[in-house]
């Protein structure tokens, strides 16, 4: 609805920003704007499925390289680059327990 989607986060690689079990509001339509580093994106990854990661860098070929938020995450190299067509949307809201 309105290009928005609610998703539940599983896994711990985005802690403490997005702890496991929290909900994220994702906007697809925001992708009309350029993707920039530090944005949090939901990516339809060819190997890892639907994942949420932080943009590390957008290279000169407009490919997006992403990372987790702690050292338990897959590395940037392991995740590899994705193109904009593989982006499900940008995270615009996070709903988590207050004490986590």
């Amino acid at each position: 609805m309105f290009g928005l989607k609610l998703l539940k986060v599983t896994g711990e690689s985005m802690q403490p920003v997005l702890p496991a079990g929290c909900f994220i509001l994702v906007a697809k339509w925001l992708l009309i704007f350029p993707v920039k580093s530090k944005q949090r994106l939901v990516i339809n990854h060819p190997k890892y499925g639907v994942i949420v990661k932080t943009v590390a860098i957008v290279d000169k070929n407009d490919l997006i390289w992403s990372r987790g938020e702690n050292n338990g995450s897959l590395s940037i190299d392991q995740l590899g680059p994705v193109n904009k067509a593989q982006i499900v949307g940008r995270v615009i809201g996070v709903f988590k327990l207050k004490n986590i």
Partner: protein
Amino acid sequence: MIFEILNKIDAKYPFEHAGAHCDIPCKIYDPITAQLAVLTMIRMVDLINELTAKESLTTEEQATFLRLVNEKEAHGNKVKQEIQIIWGDYIKQPQLASHQNLHSLTHNIMLAASYAKQYINREATVELLDKVNQFAQIFWETKGVDVYRATCPYPPAESLVYPVLK
């Protein structure tokens, strides 16, 4: 409050998931993979030595020789990778404070693994195993788990450090 409402909705009508993948399941670390990789290297060296003891090799045996060398190389890399993961992801300040030789031991494992990869030398691979066993012992000590040494019940029948998990 929104979280609680969403959680209740999720319990009844589950939302789609977005995975925040870890490179391995978080907090699951075990040096046994590195130890097994060294054992494989030792075994490969033994098998290579059996082959090279022959006067000449058939085409089939030459192919086997190549496969053995490749496996030795691959498992040398695996040793380095598995130790690096534990060292980089699990080892933190408390473990370093209690085991101050960890950095140098890890570095020595990297050097010994490279050397064992470079040569077909059983002594080098056994020396690598000794260092990886030391690393495993420290790892289990940081977890408060006792260890014991036993000879692995399969070739190359070398001594391994195992955790006491009873």
